[in-house]
């Protein structure tokens, strides 16, 4: 789009109605502990990838929940599944399964797209 000299500026708002929360629903259904996150950031603090890149598991959580999937789609591939986040999570969120499910959901949504 931008090539043609105009751009659609989306604004900074999260457009809750317009956003696609199917990825979140997909995860909620299969991993109920996804709901338990309180955004404490323990996972992102201990995360190896998170200390080297912009990857933040906490942020990924909240973005998926709000349907802001675009940033997550690529970022989530950086996870090494080492499991430190699961170990420090005070809410017992099954973080690794959420990463796995999110990856799956993105692959699925890519298949159905076009």
């Amino acid at each position, binding site marked *: 789009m931008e090539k043609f000299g105009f751009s659609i500026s989306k604004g900074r708002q999260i457009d809750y109605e317009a956003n696609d929360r199917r990825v979140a629903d997909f995860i909620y259904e299969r991993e109920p502990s996804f709901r338990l996150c*309180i955004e404490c*950031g*323990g*996972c*992102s*603090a201990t995360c190896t990838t998170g200390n080297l890149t912009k990857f933040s598991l906490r942020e990924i959580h909240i973005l998926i929940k709000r349907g802001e999937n675009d940033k997550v789609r690529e970022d989530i591939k950086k996870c090494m599944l080492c499991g*430190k986040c699961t170990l420090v999570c*005070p*809410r*017992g969120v099954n973080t690794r399964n959420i990463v796995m499910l999110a990856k799956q959901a993105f692959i699925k949504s890519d298949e159905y797209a076009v």
Partner: protein
Amino acid sequence: MSKHVIVIGGGVAGLEAAGQLSKAGIEVSLIEKDSLTGGHLNNWYKLFPDRRHSSEVKAYLDGISLNDRIRLLTGTTVEKFHRNKSHFSIITDKGKELSADAVVVATGFDLFKSEKKEEYGYGIYDNVISSSDLEVMFRSGKIVLQNGTVPKTIGIVHCVGSRDEKAGNLYCSKLCCVTAVKQAIELREHLPASKVFCFYMDMRMGGAFYEELYREAQEEWAVNFIRGKVSEASETIDNKLVIKVEDTLAGRPLKMELDLLVLMAGMEMSEGGKKIATLSGLTTGQNRFFSAADPHYGSNRSNINGVFYAGTCTAPMNITETISHARAAVSDVMDYLKESN
């Protein structure tokens, strides 16, 4: 014939209950496992939110509980607990048998054992201490590191052993936040050159004048608040602590070097309380504290008729609440004794 009540636990709740019972003309036996009464109050320096000295409250409690209607059995634990109709008999570790018409359980709380959160390094690194260790330092007036030097940067970790599924405690201990703020102010007061950082998940300032204290900490004492759960601490060769946390509001991981790390240990059902529970058959809840007969209008009554609860053996409470709870227990005891007459 005058009635006799046994109070188990000589902390704030136990002393208040014993004092009020004796005022009402009841004979009281007060069993305390330590050699001194006062419980956790003995270790504390100043109290929130007004930062009055803990000894003032201790003096009040001693005042109402030191009288000849109260028989003090310090350094004593309960070994057997029997109920025979409306009559209770307790055998102590010293073999003494006590009998009573009612029992008040005031076994209080234990602080969460911080070494259980190994990632914070309590008991492993030299300069990781718990909130109660810090109170001892305040009392002694010497806030120094293991090597004798004065700390310059100090971190305070909230929610250690509270709201933590991994620690087995899902509940909020509700007093650690305000304790952290109080201690942060005191640290700044004692060490004006120091920088203090509080690492919190949520600031739960629900009591009277708590929020005001929080404001004071920011405004007058320049305490820094960073929202994020500390995931781990490590030690450098020059004995500094490095903590990892996500500054969730900035959305970036944050690494910080500290001289001293203070862990805000949460409140748990006391070991003594657990023992009483097994001896007596009193029921405990999922949070391991004693479960009240009714959460709204029966928080002092138990599943055993004639056994009553006072204070933090049922849930985390501050001193004000504990004293109120103990008085309410006494009111229930008096009703019970009247009815069973």
